[in-house]
């Protein structure tokens, strides 16, 4: 199997096929990244599209210093932040007002998790989600957020403790998210 780094190197050389392969690999992860963080599905799709466009556009500047995965989610994270800055002037809906996507195994559990995540501080929630859903390493999270590694570790531990407390209460308390850092 061709690695992500080899594929992006081919994209850098102008290979359209390599880019489509990368797109197929990360289409769902990038979509999920935005879907969990954006109340509007259409907006999430737009942001995912913007992310791949940015990858294609910036392929020639890819320096192969880290994994392509961290590079990709770094771009996605920046796209998300840019959208949140613009969203300051838009109406922001509570994260839990978005209906649970149909077809999942345990909708009740999903609702509880979403409520619990909504109770976390924004930075803690973001780090926890990058770790749990995007499966990024501590170092990759630190690079994306431009935060020291030890800080990431402390924040992650604190976020998990808070999440556990919130889940233990099992009382959904809607919290309005600001969609800002």
């Amino acid at each position, binding site marked *: 199997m061709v690695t992500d780094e080899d594929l992006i190197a081919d994209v850098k050389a102008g290979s359209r096929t390599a880019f489509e392969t990368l797109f197929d690999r990360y289409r*769902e992860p990038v979509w999920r990244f935005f879907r969990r963080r954006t109340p509007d599905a259409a907006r999430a799709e737009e942001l995912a599209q913007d992310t*791949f466009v940015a990858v294609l*556009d910036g392929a020639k500047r890819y320096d192969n210093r880290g994994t392509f995965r961290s590079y990709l989610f770094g771009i996605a994270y920046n796209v998300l932040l840019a959208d949140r800055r613009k969203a300051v002037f838009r109406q922001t809906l509570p994260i839990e007002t978005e209906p649970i996507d149909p077809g999942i195994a345990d909708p009740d*559990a999903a609702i509880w*998790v979403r409520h619990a995540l909504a109770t976390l501080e924004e930075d803690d929630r973001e780090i926890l989600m990058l770790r749990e859903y995007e499966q990024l390493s501590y170092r990759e999270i630190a690079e994306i957020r431009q935060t*020291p590694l030890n800080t990431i570790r402390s924040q992650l531990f604190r976020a998990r*403790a808070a999440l556990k407390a919130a889940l233990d209460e099992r009382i959904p308390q809607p919290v309005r998210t600001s969609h800002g850092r």
Partner: protein
Amino acid sequence: MAAEHLHSPTPEEVMEFVDGEGTPAARAGIEAHLAACPACQTLVAEQRGLSRELGAWQVAPAPESLKAPANAAPVARPWWRPTRFVLAGLSAGTVVLLVGLFQTRQMSRSLPVASRQVSLSAQEEEERLGRGGAGGRPAFVEAAPRPETVSQPAVSEPSSLDSRAGFAASLSTPKPEAQEQTGSGSTAAVAHGPAVIRTATLQLVAKDFNSVRTAVDVILDSSAGFADQLGVSADPGSARVLRGTLRVPGTQLTGVLTRLRALGQVTQDQQNAQDVADQLVDLDARLRSARATEQRLIDLLKNRTGKLSDVLEVEQELTRVRLDIERLDAEKTNMTRRVAYATIDLTISEERQAAIVGPLPLLTQLRVAAKDGLQNVIDMVVGLALFVLRAGPTVMLSAFAGILAWIAIRRALRVHSA
């Protein structure tokens, strides 16, 4: 959790182990520790249980419409993406600009009312023209016909008449050219033809306002006229207006008006004439009668034979008659002067203001508007430059301090949240 795990490894290290982080040696050490530590086993179970619970939040698959972009073009990227510092600088500059514009407008409004009123009295005007006679008396006085009374013995009469007598004495030296212009005197004019008081009102719009004042002076000089009153009002940023009352010999009126009209575009031109010949004849008759009465009273005093009370009564009557003579004489002099010198009410506006107040050709209005617009731009640039020089350093320093404070607060908040 922290209270329960004061031993090594710490809860965070256990969490790292669960997440697959840490060096191989550390992971091996924790793995060995876990086998004998129920508390850490519980912690590991909690961490893994949390991950499982979080996994319950699934999202639907990506929509079919999410396809690989064909190229990088769909994202419209700005040709320039400024950094935060550049944005902050631009913001500060914008603030300076806005404050500068505001200040400029305020300064222009708060300037002392510099309505420059250049007003010259007739005497100042005459002195400026160097035509003042003895005692600075206006030329028209010298040109006025010599009243018959000036040769009367009244000049040596009681002190109550001294000032008037002095005035009469000053009238005894008529100016030859004025005499020539007015004929041989008002009496002759009254006797042989109409005595007309002429007035004219002339309003002009001048393109070259700077040369107007000089041109008016030249016209007055060449026509032996003078300015009874002449003033230029000029507000900063607005058009200037010259207003004046000119006196010119009646025979020169037509020529003077013709030359004045050439100074600009005429917006009002009006002339009036009033024949006062009858009034002058009447004044002459009353004067002659009063002087005859005066002479008879003087003769009575010279040959006085009655009582003292009668003498005093005659003297009182003589005083009254002399006052009448003076009043009639002044009235006649004034009327004669008005006959001899026509009056022109002159108003000359600068072209810029005229576009606002009067109908002008479209081309002229456009030219005026363009000139005003250019002047406004120049004023704004100059005002802005002055403000930047005066307040710019302070504002920039404040903006720089604000940026530093903002950065410091951001960092403090980030450290606090960490």
